[in-house]
């Protein structure tokens, strides 16, 4: 099910037969003077959830920032539906259909919940459709409707996360970039948020690139996964395969106890290019 088919029937038909919706080829980005990601190549197919796993500082957020245009890559290409978007201004990237739910929510604390959501639809001019989408978002996150007129800064962490996701959805994105939606939330809330993420994917067909430290829930949610270590992709596969992998079980799911902790290494030869 394509995104346009459910969210925007009037939009142009998907271009390129079967090509990936979002494609990164050999992307390198610096974070200040530091080379944060090197030679990253990944693909997101229409209607899928793809996850990027990795520890703190592995470069997950840098990948998302490079896609959304906040960082300009030094090398490589980012393509949306076959169209290069690297080095574009962030507001143009949003208009082309990529919405970013940033790490740590980043809501507008002194604006009401409703105004926050309306800001999500800033580039859009179709008021009636925005109103319909607003109702849809309230359907997924009823608590936002209850607190629509309160300043967003007064919401709890989980509610702010819901607001950040709802706000991004109002741009009617082709791709939703999710940066650690589980960060700082209780396990119960994490479950709830990810249930909604899955529903959004199933019911609305929103394609998502999900960056997570919580490998367990990410692998349960996504279709395909990449593993990132110090700026490189060291492994990729369907989430089902990844979950079975020894390395993933050991390092990301904590299912195996390691005897010699001092020598934590990947057992397989690293598959980076």
């Amino acid at each position, binding site marked *: 099910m394509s995104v346009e088919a459910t969210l925007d029937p009037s939009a142009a038909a998907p271009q390129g037969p079967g090509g990936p919706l979002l494609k990164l080829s050999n992307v390198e980005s610096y974070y200040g003077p530091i080379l944060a990601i090197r030679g990253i190549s990944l693909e997101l197919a229409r209607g899928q959830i793809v996850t990027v796993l990795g520890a703190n500082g592995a470069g997950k957020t840098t990948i998302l920032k490079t896609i*959304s245009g*906040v960082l300009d890559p030094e090398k490589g290409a980012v393509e949306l539906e076959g169209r290069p978007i690297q080095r574009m201004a962030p*507001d143009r990237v949003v208009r082309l259909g990529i*919405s970013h739910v940033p790490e740590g929510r980043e*809501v507008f604390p*002194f604006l009401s919940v409703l105004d926050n959501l309306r800001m999500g639809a800033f*580039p859009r001019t179709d008021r009636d459709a925005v109103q319909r989408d607003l109702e849809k978002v309230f359907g997924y996150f009823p608590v936002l409707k209850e607190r629509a007129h309160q300043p967003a800064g007064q919401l709890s962490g989980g509610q702010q996360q819901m607001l950040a996701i709802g706000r991004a959805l109002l741009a009617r994105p082709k791709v939703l970039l999710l940066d650690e939606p589980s960060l700082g939330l209780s396990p119960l809330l994490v479950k709830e948020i990810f249930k909604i993420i899955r529903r959004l994917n199933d019911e609305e067909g929103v394609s998502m690139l999900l960056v997570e430290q919580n490998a367990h829930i990410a692998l349960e949610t996504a279709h395909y996964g990449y593993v990132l270590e110090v700026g490189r992709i060291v492994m990729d596969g369907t989430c089902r395969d990844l979950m079975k992998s020894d390395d993933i079980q050991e390092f990301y799911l904590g299912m195996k106890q390691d005897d010699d902790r001092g020598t934590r290494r990947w057992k397989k030869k690293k598959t980076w290019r």
Partner: protein
Amino acid sequence: MLDFIQQTIGGIALGCVYGLIALGFVLIYKATEVVNFAQGELMMLGAFLSFTFIATLGLNYWLGFALAVVCMAVLGSTMERLVIRPILGYPQFSIVMATIGLGLVVRSLAGMLWGTDDLRIETPFTGGVFKLGGLVIAADSLSIIVATLLLCAVLYWFFRYTKIGIAMQATSQNMLAAYYMGIPVKRIFSLIWAISAMVACIAGVLLAPITLIHANIGFLGLKAFPAAVLGGFSSIPGALVGGIIIGVVETLSGFYLPEGFKDVAAYVVLLVALMVMPQGLFGSRALKKV
């Protein structure tokens, strides 16, 4: 007693002008975290432009006023584009120096273009007075107060209810998130400068009948600055209240106290107020950010 009331009303009118200049400081500071020390010069330039349109070209007062405001809006955003944007993100000092330099350049240019004489424009209010019992209020003063109130209402409506106004609030609250929403942050900055220059221009034209127009009225910016600080520097109502307090104190001390007190009154008030409330009058409870 009558004297007191009359002086107070005059002070409020003067304070409104300070408040409007302070508003310009606050708007730019909140959105871009830049302190624009050329704000007073923007006001001066607005006054000179209106002089050119009204007195030199002989246009109708309101038409000349409107033209000056439009010109200043264009000029304000051009300044942002040419002077500020290239150095945005670099240390505050460079930006502050750039705005101070900008102010100096504007002041000397104005001196060259319009000369050093005091200029005056005829307004529809010139010479008019309102009498209320024994109270005599100059129409000029009253026009300033009314215009300030109207302008505040318009600005409130703009920031509270229009999409672009809310986007400006959003940008000032969280610039990164504004980028993620597809808000064209750089254009918003230009727009903020345009609005600040417009407000400054309005202040200048309103002030013209009271102080006359000369290249040094830009120094009023130095009195508006404590007004902005007094208000907490990030609060729009704070800027206006701060301006009015300073205007009233200055006028009253000019009337009742020996000569010389008038010019330092603003800073004495500021020092005392900051000792008691270091965050400014509205600083701590600046919940409504714009």
